């Protein structure tokens, strides 16, 4: 098993006719994702990589139900940042239950409106500013890996889940775990922004309930409260699988944003020290150097299988 995405989920692509939409549709199809339809306003009737294009999500969803035995399960959004709010809300209102928002620079008040719509419709979203999600050997959403052949070579299937606040470091963490023989159930980049759909605690709960995930590796960063909220879930006993973490930004100073909109320490909150402390006290293994993640993960897995036998 895996979380959020596998080869059975019916996926549509919003903005499929754009430069990024086309390139990443090729990646997803090449990897094995079940991309069934795309949409771009006024481009209905075209095809991209053999995938039919519709004007609206509603039409794409209807086509899905008629020809692929069910609704569109997931929509991946590749439209310019200023159009993201309308596109995501269109998908949510059409009944899509998981929206993956790849574009960067989405205004934060737009993300809040999307969250409001998702809540009202019982939908989830990942991002904005996510590189995507990949369940190795099964399917990929977004653009993790860049090309299908790289994604196949870099990420191995297995029993560790990865959650990251950085796109590049999702790939990097997964790759270095693979180098020491650790395979992965799913890798989820939650996005680099300050207001996100699924956050660390949400994804950790999905991994907790996934029988094929034995341990959770996280790449955290300064700013926000995702790491602290995950720690609270661990303390309350809701997340019991071993958690191994690296937190970036130890050297960052307060009040300056470090690339990611979410990576800023404001009013003394979201500091590196605070996150390390919260996670450590909750029982996570927090490594000081990124290079120590793979070995620490091996140890964490060995410790659980030891205690289970």
């Amino acid at each position, binding site marked *: 098993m895996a979380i959020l995405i596998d080869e059975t989920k019916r996926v549509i692509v919003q903005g499929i006719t754009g430069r990024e939409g086309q390139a990443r549709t090729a990646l997803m199809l090449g990897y094995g994702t079940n991309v069934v339809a795309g949409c771009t306003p006024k481009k209905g009737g075209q095809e991209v990589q053999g995938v039919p294009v519709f004007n609206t999500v509603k039409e794409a969803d209807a086509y899905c139900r008629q020809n692929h035995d069910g609704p569109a399960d997931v929509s991946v959004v590749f439209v310019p940042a200023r159009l993201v709010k309308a596109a995501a809300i269109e998908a949510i209102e059409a009944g899509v239950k998981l929206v993956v928002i790849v574009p960067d620079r989405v205004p934060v008040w737009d993300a809040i409106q999307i*969250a409001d719509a998702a809540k009202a419709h019982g939908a989830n979203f990942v991002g904005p500013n996510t590189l995507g999600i990949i369940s190795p050997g099964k399917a990929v959403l977004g653009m993790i890996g860049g090309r299908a052949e790289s994604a196949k070579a870099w990420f191995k299937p297995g029993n560790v889940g990865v959650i990251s606040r950085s796109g590049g*470091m999702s790939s990097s963490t997964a790759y270095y775990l693979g180098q020491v023989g650790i395979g992965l159930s799913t890798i989820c980049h939650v996005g680099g922004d300050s207001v996100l759909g699924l956050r660390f605690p949400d994804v950790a709960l999905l991994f907790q309930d996934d029988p094929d995930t034995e341990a959770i590796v996280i790449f955290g960063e300064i700013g926000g409260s995702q790491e602290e909220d995950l720690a609270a879930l661990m303390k309350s006993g809701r997340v019991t699988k071993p958690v191994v973490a690296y937190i970036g930004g130890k*050297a*960052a100073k307060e009040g300056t*944003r470090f*690339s990611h909109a979410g990576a800023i320490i404001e009013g003394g909150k979201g500091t590196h020290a605070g996150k390390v402390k919260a996670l450590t006290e909750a029982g996570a293994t927090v490594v000081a150097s990124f290079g120590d993640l793979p070995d620490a993960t091996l140890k964490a897995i060995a410790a659980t299988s030891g205690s289970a036998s």
Partner: protein
Amino acid sequence: MARLHEYQAKALLTQHGFQVPQGAVARTPREAAQIAESIGGSVIVKVQAWTTGRKAFGGVVSADTPQQVAEHAERLLAMKVGNFPVTEVLVEERVPIDQELFVSLALDDAARAPVILLSLAGGSGIEDRAADVHRLACDPQTGPDDDQLRGLIAGSSIDKTLHGQVTQAVRGVFEVASTHEARSLEINPLVTTTDGRVIAVDCRMTIDDYAVFRHPELGIEIARELDHPPTLLERVAYDVEQADHRGTFYFAQLNTAAEPDTKGLIGFHGAGGGGSMMSMDAIMAEGFTIANFTDTSGNPSAAKVYRAARTILSQPDLVGYFGSGSGVASQEQFWSAYGLAKAFGELELTIPAVIRLGGNSEDRAVEILQDACAQLPAKVQGYRKDDTPRTIAQRFAELVNDSNAKPWQPRAPRVPGFVGAGTSFAITGGRVWIDSQACDAETTRLVVEHAYGLLKDEAGVPVLAVSEQDAAGKDSEFIACEIELRRAGKPVVYVELDVPGLTEAVGCVAAAGGGN
């Protein structure tokens, strides 16, 4: 800049019906005195700087006469906050405070909604207020819940005749923040006065960087969250980013001199947000001070990476150039290699450079960088995804230690002689020059081979194979062509790329560095 000064934020508040102290901003002691004169009576003079605790360092003072105001203003306008000189002071009436309240709006990442923090306790210190801070969850469309808000105010010790005004102020905070897309807005204190007014005495406000484009009314020059007003180089970098939407380029200046007990000041060039931050941690753990934080990612053009490198190398006193990202990049890395090779080559880099180019097409990227830089005075090394950040940070330290190079001083790029004389055509943000006279049949063949179909052989010399319009956006391809010809020992192509404002910025930096 996405942070607003107190007086700018207060101007927005008044547009939305708030009362603020009567006053105005001054840039000279004379202006300050004039403002005080027109207000009459005793006033407060406050430095305008993005910092808390202004009172503690004497940045907020009261004065009874215009003469005193001028004296205070003179002192305050000579102050520096951090590295940045104070250029403005706000002169305001002294309001007769009865009770001090606190209200702020933040975006709660867990709730994915705005939240208002409200203290009605009326204490004067933050500790007094912390005990009585209420959280009001907000609906993104309609703001705080009216009943909850009214209940809180009804139960407070605030004079009943002012309840309506205080309620309106709290609702106003939501209105101002949502209208102008603030990330945060804090009125501290909001006061009731003995003469029956409710006034916003101080205000801090930050606008969402990503929404600045739809708020021209705010007059924000640079939508970047920094802890200081933008430097000349940050302005240059911001203009580069605005002019080229292929990938992202983020640049923040952090230090102008090495911290004591470190191995020196270095140029830092990350790739990818998390990867950049992780690499920054790794190189600082190795004992270096970074002059800047840079991130080029999201599949940037070679031209953008080139301009980023030029910007980084416009900082004086660097002992090395360290580049590293996530190490397993989804983007094609050879474009970055071309951009770096061009910048290093024409600046004739003297200080060691270590660049981790792991990810798609990493072998090609490393080969391009190392080969194109082989003749430079500096050692330039490329690394792949299997080289960990710690390893290359150590390698970088060794190279810096072994290097006899003097600390880097910004310089103008070396431009080949045929620029200005050879054939040329314009591209976006620059011009491509070809040394036609030096083009024998074999050289022309090489040029055409490396030109991505953009150039063709006509009568033995390379000429455009497409319209100038179609060639205009192909700056990265022409950079690749330039570097490949340089590698082949036939440097007959040169892409002249503008970096608006860089020469002026270097002049200032160099001048400042000289006095250091």
